[in-house]
């Protein structure tokens, strides 16, 4: 479970206020999709959850651990949080197998054989078991993103964070990545997804958060937010993209 309590974040020494006091809860196993115009703070909020951005004030408590407390070992916390980036961020100097097994071997101290076996299972799951010995440069965007998901899953995270995972993909590759994410959702993974894929949000999300101007302006089931938006800004945003 994730408690976000009165979270503030700004950039450029406070000049640029991005998050303005966000308070929310995400249940274990829940799928939350964040939508909203660019610059509304969706990605920043997501990046705060694994402290890639350090909030100015407020707190985030994940499964009872206040990750914003100074004494918290953030590396330990991050082991339970998988993150998938817009630009994949695969390690270009490592093979696909090494990309996936690096963290389990170095962080979890798994034996190499065990990590490799697990990697093969994950590669099978994302449909790329024949790519173990390839390098990232040899893969298409959709394949890279599926590998990035497998890499995150190799640490057996309890929560997966997705930061616009399909925004950098050619249209014909979006489907294959969303399929993997849908499958993951069926396994009961807790997921927080920033995306512009409204179809995915409708199908998978338990709740949709509409963010604008550093706050969650409206939230509810996909049906409630998409079909009967109450907030004027939500209506305006949806009228532009649907």
């Amino acid at each position, binding site marked *: 479970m994730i408690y976000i309590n009165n979270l503030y974040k700004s950039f450029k020494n406070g000049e640029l206020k991005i998050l303005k006091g966000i308070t929310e809860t995400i249940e274990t196993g829940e799928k939350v999709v964040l939508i909203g115009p660019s610059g509304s703070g969706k990605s920043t909020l997501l990046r705060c959850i*694994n402290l*890639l951005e350090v909030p100015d004030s407020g707190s985030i408590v994940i499964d009872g651990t206040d990750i914003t407390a100074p004494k918290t070992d953030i*590396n*330990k916390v*991050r*082991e339970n*949080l*998988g*993150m998938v*980036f817009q*630009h994949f*961020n*695969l*390690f*270009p*100097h490592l093979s696909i197998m090494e990309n996936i097994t*690096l*963290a389990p071997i*170095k*962080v*979890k101290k798994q034996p190499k054989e065990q990590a490799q076996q697990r990697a093969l299972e994950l590669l099978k799951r994302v449909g790329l078991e024949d790519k173990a010995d390839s*390098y990232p*440069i*040899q893969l298409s965007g959709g394949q890279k993103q599926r590998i*990035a998901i497998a*890499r*995150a899953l190799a*640490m057996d995270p309890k929560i997966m964070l997705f930061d616009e995972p399909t925004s950098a993909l050619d249209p014909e590759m979006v489907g294959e990545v969303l399929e993997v994410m849908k499958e993951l959702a069926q396994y009961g993974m807790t997921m927080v997804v920033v995306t512009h894929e409204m179809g995915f949000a409708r199908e998978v999300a338990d709740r949709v958060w509409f963010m604008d101007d550093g706050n969650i302006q409206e939230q509810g089931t996909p049906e409630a937010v998409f079909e009967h938006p109450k907030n004027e800004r939500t209506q305006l945003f949806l009228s532009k993209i649907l």
Partner: protein
Amino acid sequence: MNILQSISNGLYATFVKDGRWEWFLSGLGYTLLISLAAVLLGLIIGILAALGKLSRIKPLKWIASLYVDVIRGTPTMVQLLIIYFIIFAHVNLSPWIVGALGFAINSGAYIAEIVRGGILSIDKGQTEAGRSLGLSQAQTMMFIIMPQTMKNILPALANEFIVLIKETAVIGMISNIDLLGAAKKVQGRTYDYLYPLLGAAVIYYVVIKILSTCLNRVEARMRKADER
């Protein structure tokens, strides 16, 4: 005496008589040895200095910045003389070791800037991906950032080695063991500047030409491999 005979006499006295070609060979050997040792040791110093300059720990940052600043702001020859006549004045080390150390300390400052630029040129997403997987900052640097940095800066390092081959000629201030030193020793015997100096220049040129051609080939091949 015609001109051809004078040339052949000069070449004979410079390279053949008393086996003087061996002096040049040994001098070239020391020049290459000192340059290679300096660039390898300089790489270690350079990596440490680059990490220091990028560190968030203020004293480390200051020390690394001061080192790079002072070395780049003073002549190589002055540094070499200070190291030989002051720092190692009472230590009995062979001149080539002192020379290699001196050039390593000198080169380290330039390599530090190469390494720093290399680290900064790696996409920030690489660090974020590493950290998000639970790797510590040090692990991310060691397993993700540095391997990519080293590959990117390899051509610049090889170039630094080639530059050092030329720069190490100033080691003559402390000892005549290098290639130029061999020319000076021969000149001391023959009282002729022309052939020893031209000979040394030709040898420097040929060696550097060979090395830089190899470097260009390797670079081209690396670029091709990246386009795979």
